[in-house]
């Protein structure tokens, strides 16, 4: 099903079963299951403190699970660390660079630790780091630091990259550049696991979205499936005021509703699919109503996210 994934690669690159991780008496990850398919981009979404970073850092070998199993590229990230490390690319949520090192020399150094690194000049060009290549890390802006960290994660030509909040603090242009790079990685068969707070990022970039809350997976799937599944959608149109909606409601499936929100502005809620749309428009035709401005409001990933994780602010 993935003609663009490298031939012969194993289908699953990350496999987590029942992961539990505690810090003292606080449970950061509480029985989490996750599968990442080869050659895909998987976004891990969740409020602050949901356990996203802990999960990713367990895959990277930084944390030892208190329970459950974690396999990355078929290896145990702690016991097989020496074999795993050269094959993965890691972008930490912050830091990771000598404060006195210049951006370009740090990248060249990381390239030297690998057998077949990317062309450093091309990568610098690609991520727009040329203008700050001779600037020491401590003088880089937040966005430049994120882009350097991304470059450090991919320079070793890994099979799998873990990006922890890759676009936090980036301006829109840098954010686009990061997205483009992730897409290019995917097109070349690199698997990506990223954490993010941005719904649009998860929606436009990923093949699979995993919503995590309180250390557990609360929803998982293709972004479109998630938006479709369960949640109700809304159809709106305007017509002449005071239409009798009773006959429309009879024609609609059970569980639908129809009302006139303000004079002449109508709202239908329910499972909005092509069938429902056809029912509404034919009803309008029968009643000589021109449904102006007819529009379908799909649920965004943000709606799904807030529905699942609650609207209250997290610590």
């Amino acid at each position, binding site marked *: 099903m993935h003609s663009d994934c490298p031939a012969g690669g194993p289908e699953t690159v990350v496999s987590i079963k029942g992961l539990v991780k505690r810090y003292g008496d606080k449970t950061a990850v509480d029985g989490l299951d996750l599968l990442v398919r080869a050659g895909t981009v998987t976004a891990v979404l969740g409020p602050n403190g949901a356990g996203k970073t802990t999960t990713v850092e367990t895959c990277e070998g930084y944390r030892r699970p208190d329970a459950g199993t974690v396999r990355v590229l078929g290896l145990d990230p702690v016991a097989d660390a020496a074999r795993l490390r050269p*094959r993965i690319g890691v972008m930490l949520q912050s830091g990771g660079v000598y404060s006195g090192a210049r951006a370009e020399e740090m990248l060249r150094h990381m390239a030297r*630790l690998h057998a077949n690194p990317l062309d450093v000049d091309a990568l610098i060009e690609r991520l727009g780091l040329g203008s700050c290549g001779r600037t020491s890390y401590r003088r880089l802006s937040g966005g430049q630091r994120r882009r350097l960290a991304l470059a450090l994660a991919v320079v070793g030509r890994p099979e799998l990259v873990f990006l922890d909040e890759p676009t936090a603090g980036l301006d829109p242009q840098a954010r686009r550049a990061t997205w483009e790079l992730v897409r290019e990685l995917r097109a070349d068969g690199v698997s990506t696991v990223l954490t993010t707070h941005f719904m649009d990022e998860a929606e436009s970039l990923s093949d699979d979205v995993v919503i995590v809350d309180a250390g557990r997976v609360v929803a998982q799937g293709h972004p479109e499936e998630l938006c479709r599944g369960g949640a109700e959608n809304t159809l709106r149109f305007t017509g002449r005021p005071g239409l009798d909606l009773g006959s429309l409601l009879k024609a609609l499936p059970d569980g639908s509703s129809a009302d006139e929100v303000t004079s002449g502005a109508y709202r239908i809620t329910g499972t909005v699919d092509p069938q429902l749309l056809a029912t509404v428009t034919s009803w309008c035709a029968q009643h000589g109503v021109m449904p102006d401005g007819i529009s379908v409001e799909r649920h965004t990933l943000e709606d799904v996210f807030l529905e699942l994780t609650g609207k209250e602010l997290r610590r």
Partner: protein
Amino acid sequence: MSTTADTASTVGTGTYAPAPGAAPLTRMIAAQTAFETKLLLRNGEQLLLTVIIPSLLLVLFSTVDIVDTGSGSSVDFLAPGILALAVMSTAFTGQAIATGFDRRYGVLKRLGASPLPRWGLMTAKTLCVLVTEVLQVALLAVIALLLGWSPHGGVGAVVLLLVLGTAAFSGLGLLMAGTLKAEVTLAAANLVFILLLVAGGVIVPLGKFPEGAREVLRLLPISALSDGLRDVLRHGASMPWGDLGILGVWTVLGLGAAGAFFRWE
């Protein structure tokens, strides 16, 4: 169902096609050593500590009669002490501060996910210290010779003292860097440097201290190193076993504790 990612190009250019692998171990360690040495030699505060302060002290105390260094030429007394100070400045103070901030800025953590193994990183740090010390010893020896220093003794004993002193100070420096906050390490490593400079027989002979204090002070690693180097370089002793023993104990304690308590993040 590879239908996502609105504008995703589905056919790659091959630029990022996976080709993972670690560089050969020796190349990784050589690269890490070269990189860390470059960063160290470019760091103004580190140079002040490791080059400028020892050189100034050597010139100042050899040419101006500030401290009574006993009979004979004062440079013959001072040069071994300053060499000991140079070892301490690099292996202990400089390494503690640099490693403390590497840890604070997540460098140790990030390199932990690179192909370079942790022991490879520590080997590179040690080599970086040794390279710096060779440069320090060469510079300080030239300055001392210009000031009329006439060293005695065998090279073997001097090298053994320098290596064991380096090991002892590295252990203590890494213990500090791996357990304390970076700012605390910065302050504490500088304070210890000054205290040991004054009370460790570097420029002030231990004989100037009261007898009770002297017996304690001579057990310090800096006293053992400066005393051992002085025994060889000034008095032509063949092998100062007592001082080597003291350094050996500090090495075991320091490296052992660093190995047990060092935290990478």
